[in-house]
């Protein structure tokens, strides 16, 4: 599918895919698509950083390739690996059958024995893919340096096969929860966008677009309550994902309002200390919701 022609068009396309992007995010994504730049998304937990990549893949009919980062991730898990077990079996089979194929060794390091990992897969797929590099801040800094190399020219050299280069690079979305500051060099390669919590009206819209079955009244009450929760001094303030979860839970139980909010708090508050704080203020939190 062709890329969007303007920011407005992209916003509309994303909306149809079930994602409400504000002007800033749409602009950032639009520029990223037009200029083939990776985009780095930072923001609080649960504001839809990962979701952006998923929806972009869905609405443009691209393949989503996800690289989940973690401490100790290395190139074997990110790029490619040779299938040693199969190579070994192949060698045994060759020697048992006394096959004298001059190309046998070359075949051993051919595409057949290559295990593609996300980055190689993405370079191969080129602009048919959205590459999501999730929680980059969890990976070690050495991995960041390596990623820098891949992101700058989208080409991967495999000594045995040769260099693979993407004709036109995939859309790359990096997300970070800011557990540590990323390296400046990596940031400089990327567009940067900070996703904050949405305003109340927008959040209601988001809930309704994600869960069309929910009544607008319930959505409004839930969002008001969640916005109040965020004002409290919680260790883990609820994200948009939690709002949607809570609304879905209440709707599933057939609740019309937050009168029995106490029983379903587990959908939004996921820390014991927080739960105590919330229970102390429960009346205040849900009472505002009644008024709305």
């Amino acid at each position, binding site marked *: 599918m062709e890329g969007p*022609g*303007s*920011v407005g068009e992209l916003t509309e396309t994303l909306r149809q895919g079930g994602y409400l992007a*504000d*002007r*800033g995010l749409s*602009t*950032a994504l*639009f*520029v990223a698509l*037009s*200029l083939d*730049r990776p*985009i*780095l998304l*930072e923001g609080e937990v649960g504001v839809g950083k990962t979701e952006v990549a998923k929806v972009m893949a869905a609405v443009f009919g691209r393949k989503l390739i996800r690289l989940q980062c*973690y*401490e*100790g*991730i*290395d190139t074997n898990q990110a790029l490619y690996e*040779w299938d*040693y*077990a199969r*190579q*070994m079996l192949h*060698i*045994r089979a*060759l*020697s048992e059958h006394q096959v004298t194929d001059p190309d046998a*060794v070359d075949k051993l390091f051919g595409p057949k024995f290559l295990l593609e990992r996300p980055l190689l897969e993405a370079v191969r797929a080129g602009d048919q893919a959205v590459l999501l590099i999730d929680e980059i801040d969890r990976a070690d800094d050495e991995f960041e340096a390596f990623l820098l190399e891949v992101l700058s020219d989208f080409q991967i050299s495999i000594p045995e096969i040769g260099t693979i280069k993407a004709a036109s690079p995939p859309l790359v979305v990096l997300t970070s*929860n*800011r*557990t*540590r*500051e990323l390296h*400046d060099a990596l*940031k*400089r390669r*990327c*567009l*940067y*966008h*900070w*996703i*904050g*919590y949405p305003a109340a009206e927008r959040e209601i819209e988001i809930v309704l677009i994600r869960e069309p079955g929910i009544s607008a009244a319930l959505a409004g009450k839930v969002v008001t309550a969640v916005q109040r929760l965020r004002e409290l*001094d919680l*260790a*883990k303030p609820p994200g948009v994902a939690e709002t949607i979860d809570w609304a879905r839970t209440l709707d599933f139980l057939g609740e019309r309002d937050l009168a029995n909010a106490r029983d379903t708090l587990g959908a939004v508050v996921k820390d014991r*200390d927080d739960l105590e704080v919330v229970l102390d203020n429960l009346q205040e939190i849900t009472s505002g919701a009644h008024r709305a």
Partner: protein
Amino acid sequence: MPTAPELERVPFTGLLVRFAGELRAAGLAVGSGDVLVYCSALTRLNPADLVDLYWAGRTTLVSRHDDITVYDQVFRRFFLGDDGEAGDPLTLMLRASAEAQGALAIPSTEPGESEQEDEAILGWMASDVEALKHKSFTACTPEELAALRRIMARIKLTPPRRRTRRAAPARTGARPDPRRTVREAMRMHGEPARLYWRRRKVRLRPLILILDISGSMADYSRSLLQFAHSAARSGGRVEVFCFGTRLTRVTGAMECRRPDEALERAARAAFDWDGGTRIGDSLEVFIRDWGRRGLCRGGIVVICSDGLDRGDPAVLASALERLSRLSHRLVWLNPHKGDDPGFRPSTLGMMIAAPHIDLLLSGHDLSSLEKLATLLPGLN
């Protein structure tokens, strides 16, 4: 797509470059590469639309969340002329278009936070008294500084190590190394002659220093900051925080090479120097803003304070409990402990802290800091 052909390319680019220059002057790290991307981003957008202008710059020229406020200020000043500067026709034209669009509400993603920051900046500018208090930090005599530098050179903090997921080739180990085994087997015409092994690598745990710089600790804080500086340069990951009435992260200031400069910067960052002490509140801020994001996960947290807390003891108790759960080990340096081996914590803060502390040391002189340096690697 540039919808405004009447905007002649060159002067407009000049305007953008000047804007980038302003940002650079305001302290943002804007490279010429970024400016190129910024300009080409605007060719895809509508440069006459102020909102596009805003977002194109924010997404290409800003790469740090903390810089967003600065960007907003510069943008406002440059394109909206908050300071009443006449400007050239292009800027004026843009301003006119902004007025036509109504007031441009520069979106603030987090209203609460930016307000706080404004407040902090205002407080900083307004209070001469607080500014004067910096003096004690930077007013180290040359002899003192020389002595502290010797301390710095002598002590090297090495945090304990942990095993990582990664493996490296080893003579013996727990996992076979298929890659090397196959490679060697190829050399032997496909006959696996010998099995090679890998072993998990080890890494230094992060070290987090949280230093009390309040009045009751002022005598020690100078040497401690020097100590923090040397620790930060010992390799591995070191984060340094200061607190008195409020918590300040000074890791950035510790990164420069010259100790004097680092001290001066830390003094500038921690503007509650010699104020009161609110350990509980400060630790809670640490947990909320840094700890729970994973900064101290698996790390060694070293708190240096005398435990004289003016805040609510319950806050301190809960903060310490959470901190001890979030981090790997909690070390407390209390200079008032001195050399007395039979030291019993007498301040309320210390009594509250005692159950959560893994190691209590004094840290009042060079030898006690050396003791910390020798004990630290063993805190597995």
